[in-house]
């Protein structure tokens, strides 16, 4: 599928809000978030990096936007500012009401709650707290390898429970 086919336009139009939310959650700055979404989309267009076998376009774009935003977060010194605001032990940012997709948010919350506590802890720190692997290791006093394997296991469990289609 070429990237300039209508499917891409539709996916973007339908999901721009979600892409922005992903970037904004990380950067806490509207302009920086727009730039990250922009940067990711231009990167995808210019490299032709998306093919249907790479899965659903939205999930692919979200991953790209997240990487772009995390990059920006780490390269810009905005990081320190944000940490001062959020703190390392921010509460779980799964708010059903405020979520961009409340129904999906409820499923996600249930799936997170069902994870073994050690897995839930690392995924919340890394995903919702935007901590790097090294930071999660330092925060939890776990070896880096353990952090990696727990995160990996957590995401695989989430995929299993979320794709079971529980209402």
């Amino acid at each position, binding site marked *: 599928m070429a990237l*300039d086919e*209508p499917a891409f*336009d539709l996916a*973007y*139009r339908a999901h*721009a*809000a*979600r892409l*922005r*939310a*992903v*970037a*904004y*959650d990380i950067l806490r700055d*509207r*302009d920086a978030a*727009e730039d990250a*979404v*922009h940067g990711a989309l231009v990167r995808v*267009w*210019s490299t032709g990096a998306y093919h249907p*076998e*790479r*899965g*659903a376009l*939205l*999930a*692919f774009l*979200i*991953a790209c936007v*997240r*990487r772009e935003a*995390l*990059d920006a977060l780490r390269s810009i010194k905005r990081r320190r500012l944000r940490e001062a605001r959020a703190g390392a032990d921010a509460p779980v*940012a799964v*708010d*059903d009401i*405020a*979520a*961009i*997709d409340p129904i*999906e*948010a409820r*499923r*996600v*919350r249930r*799936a997170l709650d069902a994870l073994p506590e050690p897995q839930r802890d690392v995924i919340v720190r*890394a*995903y919702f707290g935007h901590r790097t*692997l090294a930071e999660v290791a330092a925060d939890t006093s776990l070896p880096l390898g353990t952090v*990696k394997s727990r*995160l*990996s296991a*957590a*995401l*695989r469990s*989430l*995929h299993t429970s*979320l*794709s079971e289609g529980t209402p």
Partner: protein
Amino acid sequence: MNHLDDDAELYALGLTGRERDAEIEAHLAGCEPCRRRVVAAESAAASLAAALPPMPAATARRTWWPALATAASLVFATTAAYEGIAANAASSQLARTDGALVAIAGSHFGHTTLTSDSGTIAKAIYARDGSWCYVLVSGAPRGAHVVLHAGATTRDAGALEGATPATLFLRTPGRSDEIDIVAGDHVVAHGKPLY
């Protein structure tokens, strides 16, 4: 290269870093099992993204009007008209980039990398029907202009705005044969859109 193992999920979460990302992407191009694993991981990560709150709208200047707007919304809340008004209010807040993204999202477009001087990276995204053109330039001299050529006509479309990248979104009367980025009287980048 060995299979990705745990890095499949870490990549989907954006935790692997650009250098490793490049290796992972190269591996994914030729490895079906790892690709499946990354696709599954990205799908789970996308679900997590659904739990995030939306980006707040641009903050309006604090004046007396929000109170009036609230009152107006109470009046109109019972009518279907409210939705139209809310949409108008939202669209009036669209930033420059949003305007460009909305146009891009709503049409068939192509894109081209402009040939440029070292240090300048320029790209144009354009509607297939020639109705708009969006130029993004990194590393161009400040105040560089976009110049469009169509047949015998040459048009200075205006100065690029902002930085890293500087951008210019243009509504265009038709297809352009060539797009130049001009600084002073020097063409720092040029390219031809393929419609």
